[in-house]
């Protein structure tokens, strides 16, 4: 990777980590929601570095364009949520440090112990290959995803009507 690419890479890394810290630690939910925008964007950038062009594009489209808009609308439509201050300190946080520390140690240990493959193959545009795979090898999962969505749709419809009837 050339020096310019290196710089862009680290910009994306810092963007992702920095904004996800804001998501977790900010006490106003609206700030967290907007910070999530930059997290998703940063991750999309990292996908580009992994030569996953389709994944990066769909990350921007689905997460930034769809899910995040939904979250922000949800925040807007909830009364008083913009002024709501969410306590960031939780109960038993010193006890929680022990398992979290162990998990953190395990992850760091794992990252440094593993000899990660460094060369990313430049395969060019992946969209065509993905499309072919979805309709051949991954045909069943592809169709199953629609069954999953059907279940979610019927369940959501049921829950939504439940609240309307309760009014």
């Amino acid at each position, binding site marked *: 990777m050339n020096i310019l690419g290196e710089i862009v890479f680290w910009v994306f890394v810092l963007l992702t980590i920095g904004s996800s810290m804001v998501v977790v630690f900010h006490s106003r939910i609206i700030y967290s929601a907007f910070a999530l925008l930059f997290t998703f964007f940063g991750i999309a950038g990292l996908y580009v570095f992994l030569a996953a062009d389709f994944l990066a594009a769909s990350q921007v489209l689905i997460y930034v364009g769809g899910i995040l808009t939904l979250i922000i609308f949800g925040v807007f439509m909830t009364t008083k949520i913009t002024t709501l201050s969410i306590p960031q300190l939780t109960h038993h946080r010193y006890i929680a440090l022990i398992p979290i520390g162990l998990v953190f140690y395990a992850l760091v240990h794992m990252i440094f112990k593993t000899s990660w493959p460094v060369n990313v193959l430049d395969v060019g545009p992946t969209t065509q290959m993905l499309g072919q795979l979805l309709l051949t090898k*991954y045909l*069943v999962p592809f169709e*199953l995803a629609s*069954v999953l969505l059907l*279940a979610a749709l019927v369940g959501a*419809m*049921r829950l939504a009507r439940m609240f309307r009837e309760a009014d």
Partner: protein
Amino acid sequence: MTFNPTDLLAIAPEIAVLSLAILVIMIEVLISRSEEVLQGITAIGLLAVMAVSIFVRSTSANVFSGMVANDDFTMYLKVLLTGIALLAILMSKDYLKGKNFRVGEYYTLILLATVGMMILASSTDLVTMFLGIETMSIALYALAGFRSECSKSNEAAMKYFLLGAFSTGFLLYGIALLYGATGGKTNFADIGIAITAFGGDNPAPAYLYAGIGLIMVGLLFKVAAVPFHFWSPDVYQGAPTPVTAFMSAGPKAAAIIVFLRLFGWALPDMSIAWQPILGVVAAVTMVTGNIIALSQQNIKRMLAYSSISHAGYLLLAVIAAGTAGIRSDAAAGMLFYLVAYYLMNMGAFTVAILVSRARLDGDYQINNYQGLAANHPWIAGAMALFMISLTGIPPTAGFFGKLYVFSAAVKAGFIPLVVIGVLASAISAFYYLRIVVYMYMRPETAESSKDLKPTPAWKTIMIVCSILIIYLGVMPGMMMKLADSSSQKISSPNRVVTLK
């Protein structure tokens, strides 16, 4: 590689259940909202699906490039899962009456959960496994919260959803790490081959272990094993009782089967790493589940803890499957155990619905069973049979289920675990047989002398479950032969697909 239309025959049962789900919800919208019509169509449809599962077969062992298994073992599982859905639906109609439910949605969600379970039980690939788990779980989250007027039911749905979503995160993280560690394999058989390459100078990477551990956490949550069981008593108590019965039998069966397939068929070479961990989990699950069940006063919570301990017994079969040469024994034992567990659990929940309905406030206290035998000898007799079978006393199906699972574990050399299992079953006798004592040896109360008014559907369930439990307990030979012969030939499709 092109699409082979005859592969569709292998997933014909799933397609049939899915079509039935769509049909039921469309009929509710367009033609009739009658409970009788909708339940009748669902029940007849499920009987047809059973026939489809048995008679429509594809001969190819490798369907859809190894995404799902196609063999006798899988076929029996599909029949079993359809049977679970069928009994849950039979149980539901009279329960739903007067509760102002949209029954079409209810039946559709049960059918969609069944599709998820069937996919899960037949999956031989991480992708289908994940989609199966999610389809099943999402339908169940909505079903758990179906009694919208009841705060306990809302709590159950919320708790189940939040913890379930969290466990999905673990599962997915684990799948990603396993995918990375095996060089981009998702097929169980391919993963097994990729793992044989490790060893000696080429040690398995640390994140392979992490991936296996995280997948284990995700699956243990689904089967409600200790320490990932906290959701299950509250969810079982809050959900509508037929849904609880369905949840305790179906999803548990589907999840434990994929556990067996993944760990026994894809990861046997890593068994040194996972067998001890699962061994500890199984021992703690068996002991904890049974001990907490002792102090329960609510029969739904008691059956929830009992189903936790049964997950522990089933985990013994998963552990045994990691030992070379034992895995088909373990699979056969598990199939038998699941059939037995399904029958006795569905039966017990049916009696629980009956008894609670006749009570003033419809509660599920165990005290309600006092003196039941005096007025309702048949119902009390059936309940006693279910309890004896759940304990694992011969001559019932529950005894042979435990016997086959335990003997597979003994063959694999896990004798201390089996000793713990037997002791835990002895503990379980206290709370299962307490109900029998209440029914037969306590004086009847004004409450318990009320007529329970069992409807034909409930009578049918109790009769069918009792007869089959006794049949499997007295003559287990035929079922065992089916389980044995089918588990010998569990397909493990093994074609490495290369990209051009």
